Each structure stands twice: as structure tokens, then as C-alpha cells.
């Protein structure tokens, strides 16, 4: 420990000097590259007063078991001061399977709540003030039908479509790179995203239809530069989709948001986000011709990344979570969701979720993170590193565009998945040979067995309850209306009309998610994974 550090190279490959000064910023037009907070290019933040006007939104990821249990966890988090919800769905729901499907065995309600029909969503949001609480839906391949369900729930809570606020993750391209909850091939999946962007822009203008995720790309092994670069390549595809539907760039670009990861070197992460804001603003203005500054603001949720947490000495993850929250606040995130300390094992227990929430509250209410905007701005090191990160992110985007034929092709043929997997392997080697330091893993390791942490219990009877409820809902629905709605979904899928209106109709008719997915699979087919490694 007392040995002097001779060489520092960040994960993104940037060498760090022992001291930075004004000479490192020579040649950078600071006035133009920084601007004032709230002004182009938004390096220092997207609002003039940032947290002074309004602190970051706290939005812990939650949802498990039955809709009733999820509803209780939502109420618990709101009662403890959380001001937004981030809904976790179980894997069958994310893959468009009903709880009764053979592939759903052992997974119903395990990593999120089980949703088969509108009835489940109605229970989950019963008594939740969704006119005041913004709700984020973490679902991708089947985002369109789940959004349809949410819009119907909102309508029944008396919130008209024009006033519905919230976000759907709905980023299918990253799903092929990391996380893996894809169903349909790339092209029809993109069409579904186009449908949701177009529908929301015209009908639900306050809703954020897509949250582009660098998070899962980083969690799958990408370095911080690649995290931003690949996410921006994906976001540019979605902007092109919107344009192809005849939407003006300024009508929808501002409704795209981002979801990013935080783990690793503190300064590298802060510089990553400042660089990303600047580069996104330039991209939307220069490449897409936006004129409204609102279109150019990179809004993000950024909390801790599960990839930075360790199985070893799990309580250390509490400390890591606090640092990740600090990084997020220093980076000007709009919304924060922290990984809980048991996240390396399981979905968070109530105790762990509450601790994450308190971590954010301590930061914003005790530690002075609200007091002034972009407190690291102007630091020789941080500004130099921000500039360096921006250059490297831009270079990586160029490599995807010119070397790989664009992100859609790179996803379809598996190039980007292979690149990320190799990066993950190199990282793992670094952990194992100690060149990447990790406390509890390759530093200060304790060889006795780690204590067992309390895990979120799985109750198999939940699956039966879900199957039974859906059986009753299906038995009680109007069979003629359900069949007609199902046929209209099929027709729209075939003839290319926007799928959102028939999906909303199918939701109202209590057509199950599994039935809808079956109709779409029959038309679209299923993705065949290249499987390169």
C-alpha cells in the first residue's frame, strides 16, 4: 500500500498524469465547450439551477411476486419518501409468456412481478397516485403491450393520455447486447419501437417512450467509453425511426431519455457523463438539425451498477452504493436508482431497498450535494478528462458507423456482442491477476466463507395464484371482443399499421400478454442468436 503508484491507466484506456494544470486545458475553448448550466452544450447540467431547484428523483427498482405484493412494496417505498416508481417484471412477462407457460416454470414472480393481463396491472397500481408519481416500466421486447396496459390503467385512474407521465425502457437494441430479454428479430422489434415513439408523440406527449440503456451494455463488459458510444449509436437509430414516421426532430427528441451505469473510477465516471451530455447535444443539433434546446438535453437515470458489487464481503457493497450515489450526484443525474447491497445475489430485501433510499436521502439532505451546480466543473483534471472522454466516445461511434456498418448490423451479426464479451473476459482476467483492484476480491480478501446474506424468498405458490387469476379473467371476458381484438392486432402486424391502438383495444378486452405475443411471433418470427464468443 505504501508503494508509490507509477502508472495509472483508466478502464477506458486513458493514461492519467500525477498533476494537472492550466496547460492541460490549452487548446480547449472552455467558454464554448462548457457554457453555463442549462445552456448548450449542457456539459455542466441540463438545468440552470439543477438540484438547487429540484433534487434528483429517487426511483428504486421494485417489483416481485404477485401484483398484490408489488403494490405493497410500492406503497412502502412511497411512504418512506420515494417519489417515483421503477417497475420490475418477472422474466416470463418480459418474454411475453403467461404464467401458465411451460417455459415460465420456476420463474413466475421471481425477479419481478408477474403480469398476464390488465387485471394484474390494475392490482399493482391500486391506490398508487400515478397522477403525481411517475412510473418507469422496465420492459423491452414486450414494451408496447405493457405500455398499452399502463395507459388503460392511467385512464381508469382518471389520468387522460395527454397527461400521462412516465417512462418505458423499451430499448430493444441493447437487449441483444446485454440482458438478453429479446423475442422478435431485429427489424420487427425496431418497428415496434417506431410505433411507440410515433404513438406517444402524437397521443401521449408527456410520456417518455424509450430509455436508451448504456447500463446493460456496460454491465455486459463494455468499458465506459463504449457504454456511451454504443448507447448513442442506438439512440441515433431511434431518432431516425421517429423521423421515418414523419415526426419533426423537435417533436420527440426531448422525450428520449438515457439509463447509465456507475462503477469503477470516480473521476472517469463523472467525466463520462459530462462528456456524454456535451456530445449528445452536439449530435442532436448538428447531425439531426434540432433547434429546440429541449431536444438536445441528455436526461439520465444513473445509479450504481450491479457489476461493481461483489459476492465477497457483501456489506462492502453498502459503502460502494454510497459512493455510486455520490458520483451520480456529482454528474448531474436527473434520476437515481441504487443497486442494493444484496444485489449481487438477489432482488433486494425490503431492508436493503430502504438502505439504498436512505443513502440517497442522506446525500441530498445532509451532505451538500444540492448546494451548487456541477461542483467539479473547472477542475483541471475533470475538464481535461471530460475532453478526453468526449474524443474517445466520438471515435468509438465512428468505428461502429464505418467499421461495423452501423449498430443495427453489428447487433444482427453478433459483432458487438462478441466485442463486449471479449472485453468482459479481459476484465475478469484483470480481476483475477489483480491488475484491476477490487477490495474483498483481490485486495484485503478474507479466505473464510462469507456470511450468508438474507435473500428474498421465492414462493412457488405465487405461480399457481397467477395462473388461477388469469384463468378466471379469461373465463370472465367477452370472448367475441377478445377474439376480434386479437385479430386486429394480427392485421396491424401484417399490414404495418401502428400497433398501439389495437394493443390498447386488446388490453381492454383482457387478451393475455401470452396471446398477444403469440400473434406477433406468428407474424414477426423470433430472433436467432448469432452465438459468437
Amino acid at each position: 500500500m505504501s508503494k508509490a503508484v507509477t502508472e495509472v491507466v483508466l478502464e477506458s484506456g486513458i493514461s492519467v498524469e500525477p498533476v494537472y494544470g492550466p496547460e492541460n486545458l490549452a487548446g480547449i475553448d472552455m467558454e464554448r465547450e462548457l457554457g453555463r448550466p442549462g445552456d448548450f452544450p449542457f456539459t455542466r447540467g441540463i438545468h440552470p439551477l439543477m438540484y438547487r431547484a429540484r433534487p434528483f428523483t429517487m426511483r428504486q427498482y421494485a417489483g416481485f411476486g404477485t401484483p398484490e405484493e408489488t403494490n405493497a412494496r410500492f406503497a412502502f417505498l412511497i411512504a418512506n419518501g420515494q417519489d417515483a416508481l421503477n417497475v420490475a417484471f418477472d422474466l416470463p412477462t418480459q418474454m411475453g409468456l403467461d404464467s401458465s407457460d411451460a417455459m415460465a416454470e420456476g420463474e413466475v414472480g421471481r425477479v419481478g412481478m408477474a403480469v398476464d393481463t390488465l387485471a394484474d396491472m390494475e392490482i399493482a397500481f391500486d391506490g398508487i397516485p400515478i397522477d403525481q408519481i411517475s412510473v418507469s416500466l422496465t420492459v423491452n421486447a414486450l414494451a408496447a403491450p405493457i405500455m398499452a396496459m399502463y395507459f388503460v390503467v392511467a385512464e381508469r385512474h382518471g389520468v387522460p393520455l395527454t397527461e400521462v407521465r412516465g417512462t418505458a425502457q423499451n430499448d430493444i437494441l441493447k437487449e441483444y447486447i446485454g440482458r438478453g430479454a429479446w423475442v422478435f428479430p431485429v427489424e420487427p422489434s425496431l418497428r415496434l419501437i417506431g410505433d411507440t415513439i410515433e404513438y406517444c408523440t402524437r397521443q401521449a406527449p408527456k410520456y417518455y417512450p424509450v430509455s436508451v440503456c448504456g447500463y446493460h451494455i456496460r454491465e455486459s463488459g463494455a468499458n465506459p467509453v463504449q457504454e456511451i458510444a454504443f448507447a448513442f449509436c442506438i439512440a441515433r437509430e431511434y431518432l431516425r425511426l421517429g423521423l421515418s414516421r414523419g415526426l419533426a426532430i423537435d417533436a420527440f427528441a426531448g422525450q428520449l431519455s438515457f439509463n447509465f451505469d456507475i462503477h469503477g473510477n470516480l473521476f472517469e465516471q463523472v467525466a463520462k457523463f459530462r462528456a456524454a451530455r456535451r456530445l449528445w447535444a452536439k449530435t442532436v443539433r448538428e447531425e439531426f438539425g434540432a433547434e429546440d434546446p429541449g431536444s438536445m438535453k441528455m436526461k439520465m437515470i444513473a445509479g450504481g451498477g450491479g457489476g461493481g458489487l461483489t459476492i465477497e464481503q457483501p456489506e462492502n457493497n453498502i459503502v460502494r452504493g454510497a459512493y455510486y450515489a455520490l458520483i451520480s450526484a456529482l454528474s448531474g443525474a436527473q434520476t437515481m436508482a441504487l443497486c442494493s447491497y444484496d444485489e449481487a445475489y438477489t432482488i433486494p430485501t425490503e431492508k436493503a431497498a430502504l438502505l439504498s433510499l436512505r443513502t440517497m436521502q442522506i446525500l441530498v439532505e445532509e451532505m451538500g450535494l444540492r448546494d451548487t451546480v456541477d461542483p467539479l466543473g473547472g477542475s483541471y483534471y475533470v475538464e481535461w478528462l471530460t475532453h478526453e472522454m468526449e474524443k474517445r466516445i466520438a471515435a468509438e461511434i465512428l468505428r461502429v458507423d464505418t467499421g461495423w456498418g452501423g449498430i443495427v448490423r453489428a447487433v444482427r451479426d453478433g459483432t458487438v456482442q462478441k466485442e463486449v464479451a471479449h472485453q468482459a473476459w479481459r476484465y475478469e482476467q484483470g480481476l483475477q491477476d489483480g491488475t484491476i483492484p477490487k477490495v474483498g476480491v483481490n485486495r484485503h480478501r478474507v479466505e473464510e466463507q462469507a456470511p450468508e446474506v438474507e435473500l428474498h424468498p421465492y414462493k412457488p405458490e405465487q405461480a399457481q395464484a397467477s395462473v388461477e387469476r388469469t384463468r378466471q379473467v379469461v373465463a370472465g371476458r367477452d370472448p367475441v371482443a377478445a377474439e376480434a381484438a386479437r385479430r386486429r392486432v394480427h392485421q396491424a402486424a401484417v399490414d404495418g399499421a401502428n400497433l398501439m391502438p389495437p394493443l390498447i383495444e386488446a388490453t381492454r378486452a383482457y387478451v393475455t400478454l401470452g396471446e398477444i405475443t403469440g400473434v406477433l411471433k406468428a407474424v414477426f418470427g423470433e430472433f436467432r442468436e448469432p452465438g459468437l464468443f
Partner: protein
Amino acid sequence: MDRPTRVLIAKPGLDGHDRGARVVALALRQAGFEVIYTGLHQTVEQIVEAALQEDVAVVGLSVLSGAHLTIAARLMEQLRRAGLQPLVLLGGNIPRRDVQPLLDLGVGAVFPTGSRLEDIAAGIRQHLAVASSSPAAGRPR
């Protein structure tokens, strides 16, 4: 000439987190094994079929969703029915208390998240060496 030991790395079920599976696949290939990766969303039946077709000595399952006990029980049952006895390994988010129940199901070894890559390769070699020196074990062919 000895041909390299064939290993099937499989992602059963709906869980799509394959960073660990891909890293282990790369590490085992580097360690001299011939590795086949199934890709995501495989049914137990598909994995057994792949094990049969590819004639593998080892099947490594990666499960991060928590459904490892359900999946392992079904895989062991299907392998038995197919008359296959590969060395079965399990990796992923496996709490310590579930290790013995998995071994009781017939899983050869469990490598939870955080295991060293070289230990996985060494573990395979050790298990296969023991199996080939014991007349009662090994693959029936």
C-alpha cells in the same frame, strides 16, 4: 491422438444475463477445451439434445435468476432419460445453502459467481480424471 474435451456451456430458461457464460466459455477455450455455447433461452430438452448431438463430456449451466434448483432437477432427470452421464457444472448466483442440494441432485460441481476461472478448468480436469479411473462412472459408450 486425444481430441480436446468437449464442453457445452448452456443458458437454460429465460434469464438473459450471459456475461458469465461467455466469459467462462472464452476461458475454457483458452484452457484447451472445445467449447460450444448454446445461446440464450434454452429449454432443458434443447440442452440435452445439444449434449447428445455434440457428444460433450461436460455440460456447464449458467443460471442467475435464482431458478437453479428447479432447472438442475429437470436437467438431471432428462439426462438420465436420454442415457447421458456428462459431468454437470453449475455457475451463477448460487447461495451457499443451495450447493449441497445441487450436489445431491447429481451436479458434479458448483462454481458460484466469484469463482476463479482457473479453478473451473482445473475442476473439470480433476472430475474427468476421477471419472475415467472409476469403472462405475463415466459415459456409457
